[in-house]
């Protein structure tokens, strides 16, 4: 079991990372990564939604009529997203404001639907739950990596604490969406060069022969 969990995590976070390998969830990865704290909360929200959606889909997978499963999954995902939204509004209104519409947009985050459809539909509840967490962690790791550089270069700070001092000229480009685009591109490049995929190949080592 431990080995299985380890394997799920190594797939979710590195070898089959939802953002860098499956290129899913790009929209929010570009949108909320200009501050580390936003990315962190978004990541936690996604871990919660992904894990519980996968768990629920897996529990009812044997009763769900096959041809309406997508509809059921969407409904389940939206329910959990609304829970996150309400809880943030009630207990952390400032964060709710900062994340704005992106919490609601977790519903359309392909990572969650992808995990429900590919994994939870065919695996037992506990494994699916862990898989949801692993994918969420993989997503959060990417977000935090991008946000680290964007906040540092764009605001000169980390988690709102000034690091680079007064002399640092904010690199405004990094705060804007194109900044995220380039950071993400660089990250995918690094990932494809150094991290092997699930078959043990280095994706970027191919190319012309």
């Amino acid at each position, binding site marked *: 079991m431990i080995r299985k969990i380890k394997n799920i995590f190594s797939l979710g976070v590195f070898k089959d990372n939802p953002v860098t390998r499956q290129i899913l969830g790009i929209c929010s990865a570009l949108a909320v990564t200009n501050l580390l704290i936003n990315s962190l909360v978004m990541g936690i929200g996604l871990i919660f939604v992904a894990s519980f959606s996968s768990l629920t889909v897996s529990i009812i997978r044997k009763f769900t009529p096959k041809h309406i499963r997508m509809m059921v999954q969407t409904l389940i995902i939206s329910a959990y997203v609304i*829970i996150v939204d309400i809880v943030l509004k*009630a207990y952390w209104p400032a964060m709710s404001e900062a994340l704005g519409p992106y919490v609601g947009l977790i519903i359309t985050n392909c990572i969650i639907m992808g995990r429900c459809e590919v994994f939870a539909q065919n695996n037992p509840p506990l494994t699916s739950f862990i898989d949801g967490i692993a994918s969420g962690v993989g997503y959060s790791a990417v977000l935090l990596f991008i946000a680290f550089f964007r906040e540092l270069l764009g605001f000169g700070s980390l988690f709102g604490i000034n690091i680079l001092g007064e002399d640092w000229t904010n690199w405004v480009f990094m705060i804007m969406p194109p900044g995220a685009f380039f950071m993400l591109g660089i990250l995918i490049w690094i990932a494809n060069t150094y991290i092997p995929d699930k078959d043990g190949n280095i994706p970027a080592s191919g190319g012309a022969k």
Partner: protein
Amino acid sequence: MKKFTLKPILFMVVVTVFYTSVLAGINAITIERIELNEQLSDQLSFLYVLDKLPEDKSAGNVNELYETHVKEIEIKGRRLFEGYSEEGELIAYIVPISGGAVWGELRGLVSLSTDFEEVLGIEFLSHNETPGLGARIDEESFKEQFRGIEIDPDESEEFLVYRPDPDGQVDAISGATGTSNAVRDIFNNNMQEFMSETREALEND
């Protein structure tokens, strides 16, 4: 043709009813808290434009200060607020402003001195501007510039002008020209409306 069965429909209904009740339950538990949060943040905004922001931001204290300093009135069908000092003297009118900015509607508050010649403060209640760019209108350094700027109540259009215009009162945000201009236009439009329609009624009051 495939045989029609009720099972999928029933299944969907059951799942929907289940999750709707769960959400309704959570909503019922938290609704009071959410409303209190919203009320608190509104009240803080009013105190901010009057420059009466307390150190202690607990709900009870803020509510008490709000009761002392702010009173809602209605003039010619427009909602307006009066600002009072600690001694109960009328010191300001707080005018709600709104209009379209770059990404959507922007709402805010402007407090004016009782002779309408000075802006005491500005606050933005809601907007959808770009984080890090347009959303920087929420930063103190931008909003604080509005404190004490003089405007001409008999002006017809340009109440607020950005520097480097020789008559400029406020610096726009560099990198967010669109939002800055939108704020200026919303400010000017709302002030024009206020000065031409509501001011007289207040003066004759």
